[in-house]
């Protein structure tokens, strides 16, 4: 069974007389355990698509299923974990209490909660900061807490909306390495929204390229076809392989409309590092 199935989805926002076609005729499948990135310039609807999958928003037309269920049922069944660009930690709770939040909301007993949180903090390397508050952590550490929280209930699907977008390049690459390891350990499927081509290529089995006005999918690059190992087996060194550069060039070409020359308008907001 596929983790996510998107069929003929449109999302139109209307505000007064303004009509914005955020997504038009989107079809996408994410298989169980697969890492798929959505990349494209600002306004291409990649975050909107992720919000639709998370049932934080509803499509205007078309259908989305998550593990064969409606998105609403999947949300109620807690079939996915989610992380946003803002870590979104609760500032009045300690690191432990933040990671614990979903477990507490869903009625896990205290002893089991404590054990699970200790395990998760170990996983993201923040055991020493269990009693700290978010304002005492750096941006990268806060984001790791958010990822631990997203993993708390061992979801088979992770939805990540530019989780590393606000981090510096060095922290970002380290977080990418960690994410690969976490995914290998948990075997979860991931839908990952990003602005960065190297990030998408390094992390993904497949990169879905989108373009704005109207938001749609313009191409899908299978990174494994460029000779890279599956996403779960990647190490930092992959960034120096020729297949990596080939894949980066391929994604870039699709982003720029297949010409390889930056379109005057189309690629605004895309990170071409």
């Amino acid at each position, binding site marked *: 069974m596929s983790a996510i199935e998107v069929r003929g989805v449109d999302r139109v926002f209307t505000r007064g007389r303004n009509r914005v076609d955020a997504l038009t005729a989107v079809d996408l499948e994410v298989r169980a355990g697969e890492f798929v990135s959505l990349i494209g310039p600002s306004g291409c609807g990649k975050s909107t698509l992720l919000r639709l999958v998370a049932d934080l928003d509803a499509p205007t037309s078309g259908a989305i299923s998550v593990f064969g269920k409606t998105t609403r049922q999947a949300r109620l069944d807690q079939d996915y974990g989610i992380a946003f660009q803002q870590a979104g930690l609760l500032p*009045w709770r300690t690191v432990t209490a933040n990671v614990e*939040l979903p477990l507490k909301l869903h009625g896990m007993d205290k002893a089991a909660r404590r054990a699970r949180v200790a395990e998760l903090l170990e996983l993201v*390397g923040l055991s020493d900061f269990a009693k700290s508050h978010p*304002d005492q952590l750096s941006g990268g*550490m806060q984001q790791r807490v958010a990822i631990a929280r997203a993993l708390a209930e061992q979801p088979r699907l992770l939805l990540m909306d530019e989780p590393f977008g606000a981090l510096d390049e060095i922290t970002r690459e380290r977080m990418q390495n960690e994410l690969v390891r976490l995914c290998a350990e948990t075997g979860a499927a991931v839908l990952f929204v990003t602005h960065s081509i190297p990030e998408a290529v390094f992390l993904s089995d497949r990169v879905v390229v989108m373009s704005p006005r109207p938001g749609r999918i313009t191409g899908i690059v299978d990174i494994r076809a460029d000779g890279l190992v599956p996403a779960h087996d990647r190490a930092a060194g992959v960034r120096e392989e020729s297949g990596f550069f080939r894949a980066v060039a391929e994604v870039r070409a699709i982003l720029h409309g297949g010409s390889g020359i930056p379109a005057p308008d189309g690629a605004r907001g895309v990170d071409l590092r």
Partner: protein
Amino acid sequence: MTSLAETGATDARARLPIGEVRWSTVLAPLALGVVVIGLWQLAVDALEIEPFVLPSPGAIAGEIGANIDSVVSGARATGRNALLGLVIGGVVGVAGALLAGTFRVVDELAANVVAAAAVVPIVALAPVLYSMFGAAVDTGRIIVAALSVAVPVYLNTLRGLREVLPVHRDLMAAYAAGRWQVAREITLPTATPYVFTGLRVGSSLAVIAALIAEYFGGPIGGLGKSITSSAASSNYPLAWAYVTGAIVLGLLFYVATLTVEQWLSRHHHP
């Protein structure tokens, strides 16, 4: 994951922001105060200003020393009314804001009334309340203080209830959290520092209201009554001694509520 010697983590101890205040920010106003009081004393001595115009700081200090028991018991009587008003007004303000935050219709009904109440000199109600509840009890004074507090607490709490971050709302939706869970985990903790901002603003108003309400009648013993009666008997340095007591009382209320506010919001801005 191997090396996690992450830089940028700050000191993990809980602390009050007050602890970061530099000495100069404390010493500068103190020095200014000493200079002003010194000049005041010099001016009164050199220009031979009459005590009914302006008593000297020395004379006021002498009266405070001689009547310290009376000043303290006056501050206690007025402080009790102000404190009861602060608590009652706080409860009313928070309860009202919770209603208005939950039911839009309550907010729309109350908005104009509260805006009007915010500009009315509530203490002017005191004489009316004395005739309603009798001039032998403190009830009227407490109500005046409570009304003064309720307005800023209501407005600040309502604002706080609306400051919930979209990312927190999304997160709770993703967790399929119920209404009560959202209120307990997100909405109320977000609003808490705002409640105490309202209480801090209200604390000064409570003292002012309780004090001024005494000018219009009611039982004796409070600072307000003592100020009017010593001024009426031309004992101006003593009147000023009670005024000094009122200033200290107001500061106590302010600093206490400010400390609580700072403590509760110490982690609120990551």
